[in-house]
């Protein structure tokens, strides 16, 4: 099928209306809360770290692990599993929390995060951690690997899907766009990219480091089925995943879900921190963080 036919198969940027049941939302919201809690546990061991990113991305991680991925926690290398690639290695703290929530990594192990001889190094590495598919951390690699994985799985008759987690900073890297072109060219309907857009990178706000907007139009022009949602809105996230799956099944086109998130989400003390990329959190503040997280979750849960 010529690729330009694919390009015209569905309207771009339109979010199809999908009913998301309250049970699904509650389940994922609870998982996201526990992921945030795990991230604080790990952050406290170090006294610092990429806690803000883990809190911001917790809803995305909860949604993909709790609602989308097909995997066996007791057999992380199960051949038929869906693949989740963490391209952003420094988000490992969030990924470990999700792996603990998913039952792949024991919860007790989280407190070894970043320590000597731990299976949970500060940057995600496939040789260390069960469930970690790639060694990220040098950014802009994940989507290139994802293209090959999706091609390879499809060629071998597998119906497994590939999910690649990127951050908006990774959109700076040219390799990301090479992969975006490759995925569309090869009509990889089994590939879904998730981009955490927290508008922040190492040297400062993304629009002052290297302006990446308009992001939605970029992905659309590269031929991807593109949806942009509030990445901290579980209903919107789940609907976007449903749309992506339906779109993939219908026309075989890669999907991207662009998720606007807030660094430190769920812990007001950290949401407004000036130095947010690599946070230092004082010893007495961890308890406040946990209390704020729980209060926010319970407030939401009872609302």
């Amino acid at each position, binding site marked *: 099928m010529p690729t330009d036919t694919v390009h015209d198969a569905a309207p771009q940027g339109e979010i199809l209306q999908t009913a998301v049941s309250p049970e699904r939302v509650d389940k994922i919201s609870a998982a996201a809360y*526990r992921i945030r*809690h795990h991230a604080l*546990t790990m952050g*406290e*061991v*170090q006294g*610092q770290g990429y806690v803000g990113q883990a809190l911001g991305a917790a809803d995305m991680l909860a949604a993909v692990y709790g609602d989308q991925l097909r995997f066996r926690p007791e057999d992380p290398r199960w051949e038929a599993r869906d693949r989740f690639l963490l391209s952003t*290695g420094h988000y490992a703290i969030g990924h470990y929390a999700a792996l603990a929530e998913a039952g792949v990594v024991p*919860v*007790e192990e*989280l*407190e*070894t995060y*970043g*320590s*000597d*001889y*731990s299976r949970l*190094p*500060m*940057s995600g*590495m496939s040789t*260390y951690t069960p469930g970690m598919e790639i*060694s*990220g*951390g*040098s*950014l*802009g690699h994940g989507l290139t690997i994802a293209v090959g994985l999706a091609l390879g799985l499809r060629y071998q008759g597998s119906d497994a899907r590939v999910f690649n987690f990127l951050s908006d*900073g*990774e959109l*700076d*890297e*040219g390799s990301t766009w090479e992969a975006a072109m490759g995925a569309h060219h090869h009509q990889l309907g089994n590939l879904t990219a998730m981009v955490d857009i927290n508008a922040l*990178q*190492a*040297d400062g706000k993304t629009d*002052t*480091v*290297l302006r990446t907007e308009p992001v939605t139009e970029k992905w659309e022009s590269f031929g991807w089925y593109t949806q942009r949602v509030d990445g901290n809105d579980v209903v919107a996230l789940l609907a976007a995943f449903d749309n992506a799956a339906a779109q993939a099944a219908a026309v075989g086109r890669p999907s991207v879900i662009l998720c606007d998130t807030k660094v430190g989400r769920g812990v007001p003390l950290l949401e407004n921190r000036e130095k947010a990329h*690599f946070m230092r959190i004082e010893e007495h503040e961890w*308890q406040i963080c*946990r*209390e704020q997280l*729980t209060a926010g979750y319970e407030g939401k849960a009872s609302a």
Partner: protein
Amino acid sequence: MSTTTEAPDTAAAAATPAKPKLKTSAMIASFADPGQKTSNAPFGHALVKAAQENDKIVGLTADLGKYTDMHIFAKAFPERFFQMGMAEQLLFGAAAGLAESGLVPFASTYSVFAARRAYDFLCLDAAEPNLNVNIVGGLPGLTTGYGPSHQATEDMAIFRGMPNLTIVDPCDSIDIEQAVPQLAASEGPTYLRLLRGNVPTVLDEYDYTFELGKAKVLRGGNDVVFISSGLMTMRALQAAKALEAHNVDVAVVHTPTIKPFDAGTVLKEINTDRLTVTLENHSVVGGLFETVASAVVTAGVGKRVVPVALPDQFLDAGALPTLHDRYGLAVDRIVAKVLAELG
């Protein structure tokens, strides 16, 4: 600290007695000894000073200004600083373009990203036309416990193959401060293995000045000669002092310029009866050891050379002191190796 799960009881967690603190792997770790004299951001301040005297100097980075001390320059000369985003091919291609326009760019990122991912752009855009593009690579060798994504253990091996490129592996803040204006003044591309943040100040205690392309004998010694570069010169000097207690007299030759290499000075020191040891913060493949070995063989000197270097493998993540001990860069490990060699 207790680990809580589904129903977090934060009060209980706070009341649990603290376990011994685990050693951790901060990305930006210091290799300075506790209490050691240091200088903050020597590269950034040296670049500002050089730029005050040379209005052609400009700075660039790839979303790592704060982490390569380039932010000092960016603040002093905002109009002469260009943020290229996390896009290393753009960073070095653009640096070449700036040089083509007649400017003298210093472009910073981590060594891994410069060496591994932007090589083609550096090689063809900057080195082949022999442009004055100055590459500034943070976290060289094993200076972070963050794992292989950030450990540039093979950066010199990669870069030594690039014609026209000058490679400088400074020991301390003195080396960096004195190197920056010389790198700016030298024609052709250069690579500075950047030590950033609070950088030890060591060489002020020796009769030493940095001269691009020159090796310097820092101390004499009758039994052993250390040939070292980078932060390992600091360790070499410490190990030499420690070996005095074992009645072992060690000379230290500092070779901050890896390419072009001052083979004359180094071979004069090696071609003696003393045990020769090279010390480098780099893989045993393709760095100082092989540079020295090549000089020795080329000159026809029949002489064994013992390397202190990182092993030819992807290294672990962990706390930096732990890793320096594990991979043999710690002073105690150097001392033990020398004593074993001397039998």
